[in-house]
Every structure is written in C-alpha cells, then in structure tokens.
C-alpha cells in the first residue's frame, strides 16, 4: 500500500470514528447514561431564546442551500 492510499484510508477511518462519536454521544444522551443529555435537548435550550432560534434558522438555511442547491 502506497502512502497516498494509507493517508486516504486513515482519513476515512477518522471520519468513521467521528461519526461513531457523534452517534454514541447522542445515544448516551437519549439513554441518559452518566447523566448526559441528548443533543436535541441541548439545542432545545438554545431554541428557547429568539437569538438562539434565529441562529439555528440561519445555520439550517445555509446548510440546506450549500448541500442541495450550490
């Protein structure tokens, strides 16, 4: 295996590990392991204020436009 293929494999492995970390953290929060809360609940707190909700809407709009339109 050449260096380029090794780096590529390593990068994909790191992305996979990060995906596992995100899903694992959310599962731990939903199962309330170690007193953790889910991302939904955390973001729900941010949604309580006008500024927090506006920031989420802007981020959501940018994400959708970036992924699906441009």
């Amino acid at each position: 295996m050449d260096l380029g293929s090794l780096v590529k494999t390593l990068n994909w492995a790191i992305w996979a590990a990060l995906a596992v970390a995100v899903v694992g953290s959310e599962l731990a929060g939903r199962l309330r392991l170690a007193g953790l809360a889910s991302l939904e609940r955390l973001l729900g707190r941010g949604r309580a204020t006008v500024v927090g909700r506006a920031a989420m809407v802007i981020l959501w709009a940018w994400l959708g436009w970036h992924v699906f339109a441009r």
Partner: protein
Amino acid sequence: MVLGLVAGLTRRFGRWTNRSRRTRWAAVAAVLCAAAADAAVASTSRPFTWPADITTALGLVGVVLAGLTRLWVARQATAPVPPPVPPGDVPASGGAGGLLHPDRRTIVLWITVTLAVVAFELFNYASSPRSTHPTLSSILNVLTGHEVLRGLLFATWLGAGWWIWGRS
C-alpha cells in the same frame, strides 16, 4: 330553559372544537404532503441547476412561513402564566431531573465532539487532493448523488427546520 340554553351552548362549543381540530389536522396533512412533494422533486434535481435552486428555496421559505405560523398559533393558544412558586415548594414536574438543564458534562462532551469534527474538516479542506482528504461537503456530494438518498436527506433537512420552530 336555562338548562336547554347550556346544553345548546355545549353542543355548539363541541362542534366548534371538533372543527378546529379537523382544521388543524388538515393543515398538518397539507404541510406534510407539500414537504413530501418538494422532497420528491428535489431528489431528481442536481446542484447548480434551476430546479435545485427552486426546490430548495421553496422548502426554505415554506418551512420558515409554516414555522412562524406554528409559533403564532402556539402563542394564541398559550395558557395564562401560573403564579410564581413560593420558595421551598417543589415544582410538580421537571424540577429535580435536570432534563431541562443539560449539565456541564453534556456541554463539554458536545463542544469536544463538535471541535473535533470542525478541526478535522478544516484540516481536510486545506489539504489536497480531495479524493484523499474528503470533507463533509464532498462526502455529502457522494450521498446526494443517489436520488433516493438525496430525497431522504432533503426530507430530513425539512424536518430539522420544522423542529427548530417547535416549542422549547
């Protein structure tokens, strides 16, 4: 006579409530159908084309308008604020569970995970070639290349937008 009047008013109120409930369900069904139709059309479009721009803009504007309406309706139906709980009294629910107030561990955990993702994204963004250093955008590009996955991701995006406008 008074009893008859009360019975009549009760029947009228019941009919009005049922009609209001039917209207609400009809509105929810209409919004869901519109979202499904938009996602179906979006699944066949490709980025950097007019159909993609129009379907995304329709979803974006539609969710914001529906969300503002949802917020307005919720505010209209909000019950009067209960009197403050005297010091020392335990609230009936949500007081000691800590569920409404994510603790420091939760915040630290999610900040750490987010920083790790952002750092790796930036590292890959600054590196080349893209095939060796994939970014989240390039990974999503591959996923949205398939019609079904693109439609599902679009519907998920619309759902996330709808969630933002929910009650906190």
